[in-house]
């Protein structure tokens, strides 16, 4: 629509208004985050007077970040989040790809039945109490595997991959077969390399899903040492349990972490939790946008 028509003054005013409205939305979106980021770098003595409107640190200090990153609860949470998310993503991508491959083969006996079975799971979820009792029965309560394995293969991402595999040209597969490849070899040596962009998309979907997961960890894991970062953050920021981070002894005697303003500690904690998302954000944008634009309704 980039026309070379000269724009009237009215049109220019309209354009400025449109851009300003969108910039306002950008401010509304980013200001609260930037404020917390600035707060986490603000000098200890100035935290109390730090304005909620500011996005520039008042003085500069790494105290909050160093103290938080040295804190055993934070370190453990970070460690748990990283290994649990990585394992979930690997299991999820492999499980989804293998199942999608079978389901994408047109002649597969029972194909329709399995599809129906998958669709039913999208529309009917019996709720958290039956899930909880299932975990209990399987002896997985208080084990990180309850969270890692729970719904490891997503129906939505499965359908996306099936659609992708259905598009793979038949000739490529027939060629592999003629070379004497069995179905396993065909899958691992022909299909998977072809599907790299789709697999990357699914991997990022799973990554965001599992990194942000807190509910199952919260109800299945009693032992605080097994908590991922999101649950540690929740206990500190949402439930306001400052003892968890500051320590009872420090809080009582106002030493160590207790000397730092709780507000700044919370801000730092929020940012540690979203750091991996921010680090992968360029890739997330690229692949999520493509995945969503190409017709998948859910992202």
């Amino acid at each position, binding site marked *: 629509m980039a026309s070379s028509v000269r724009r009237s003054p009215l049109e220019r005013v309209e354009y400025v208004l449109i851009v300003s409205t*969108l910039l306002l939305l950008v401010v509304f979106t980013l200001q609260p985050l930037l404020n917390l980021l600035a707060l986490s770098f603000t000098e200890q003595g100035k935290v109390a007077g730090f304005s909620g409107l500011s996005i520039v640190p008042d003085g500069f200090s790494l105290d909050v970040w160093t103290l938080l990153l040295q804190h055993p609860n934070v370190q453990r949470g970070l460690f748990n989040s990283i290994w649990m998310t990585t394992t979930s993503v690997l299991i999820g991508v492999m499980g989804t790809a293998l199942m999608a491959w079978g389901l994408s083969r047109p002649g597969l006996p029972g194909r329709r039945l399995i599809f129906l079975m998958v669709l039913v799971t999208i529309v009917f979820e019996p709720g958290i109490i039956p899930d909880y009792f299932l975990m209990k029965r399987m002896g997985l309560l208080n084990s990180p595997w309850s969270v890692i394995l729970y719904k490891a293969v997503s129906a939505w991402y499965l359908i996306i991959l099936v659609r992708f595999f259905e598009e793979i040209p038949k000739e490529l597969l027939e060629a592999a077969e003629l070379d004497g490849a069995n179905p396993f070899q065909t899958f691992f040596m022909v299909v998977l390399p072809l599907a790299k962009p789709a697999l990357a998309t699914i991997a990022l979907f799973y990554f965001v899903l599992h990194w942000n997961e807190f509910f199952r960890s919260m109800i299945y894991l009693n032992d605080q040492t097994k908590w991922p970062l999101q649950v540690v953050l929740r206990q500190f920021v949402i439930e306001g349990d400052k003892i968890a981070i500051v320590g009872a002894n420090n809080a009582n005697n106002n030493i160590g972490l207790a000397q730092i303003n709780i507000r700044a500690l919370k801000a730092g904690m929020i940012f540690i939790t979203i750091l991996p998302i921010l680090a992968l954000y360029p890739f997330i944008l690229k692949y999520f946008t493509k995945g969503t634009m190409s017709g998948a309704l859910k992202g």
Partner: protein
Amino acid sequence: MAEPIEGRVAVSSNGNVPTRDTHARNVGRESVSRLLPSSATLRAQVRQWWPYYAMMAPGLIFFIIWHYVPIWEAKMAFEQVRIIPPNIWVGLKNFQVLFSSPIFYQVLANTLIISGMKILFVFPVPIIVALLLNEIRSGKLRGTLQSAIYLPHFLSWVVISGVFIALLSPTDGAVNQIQTALGFQPVSYMTNTGTIRWVLVISEIWRSAGWDSLLYLAAIFAIDPQLYEAAEMDGANRWQKIWHVTIPGIVPTIATLFILNMGMFLSADLNQVINMQNDVNASTIDILDTYVYRLGLSTGEYALATAAGLFKAVIGMILVVTSHLVSKRLTGKGVW
């Protein structure tokens, strides 16, 4: 492959449609055997397909364990749960208790109110955002704006709630600082029963207005450019083009997403509410999901909680399937 038999055909348990060949061979045998492929084709089928089933096995097992076993566990809704098993079958008694409890109706009302508010106030925002983004001529500027407003979609509700608690803090939150500067009294939005539902609405807009606009933007980009050229020839200005070309072009997408949203009416978003709930606002934003959670995992009323969960699951399923069918019928696009 032989052609399938025309008309109504029985499908065997493995999903096979018997072919003319197998049908001809089986004529005159017992009716049951007609439903199964003959042993020769069965063996050939197994030889051909077992590797695919082997590859699908982990996924299939996950689906059965995480989605189908819980359906069996949900029979608890019809039982009296005892500390020492077995449980006793009580039929619909738990549902009677549930439906005669005033809290249940309060919770149901909260759920409907919050979902209604979200449909009314959250749903239109991404449409407007997409229309505005489409007017940006420079692709670079548009891309930058998009990357900024998409970000919150990828943050967890724990994080978003933490952000909003800070943003709305009565002492040093940005909103109250502006408010006091303008001469108003500060309001503790998170612990105010009159404002907390609006906090849910605003935080939902914060999280999804940007990202959800992507679907509409995709629909706008798919509109035939010739329509705009024709409109320009007719001397249409910006708003006329939006009104007569862009909006009609995205009506199917709007309809689809609206119907699908209706299908989710009973899920007012557990993850959001559970992170925004506190002792003061709890009763105002207690929804079906948080009710089930509290009843089951805090109070230990397992059977009653399961019954409430099952109620939500069944009504939810009816809503989703209906909305899917309606959407398919009207716009050709469904949930799946």
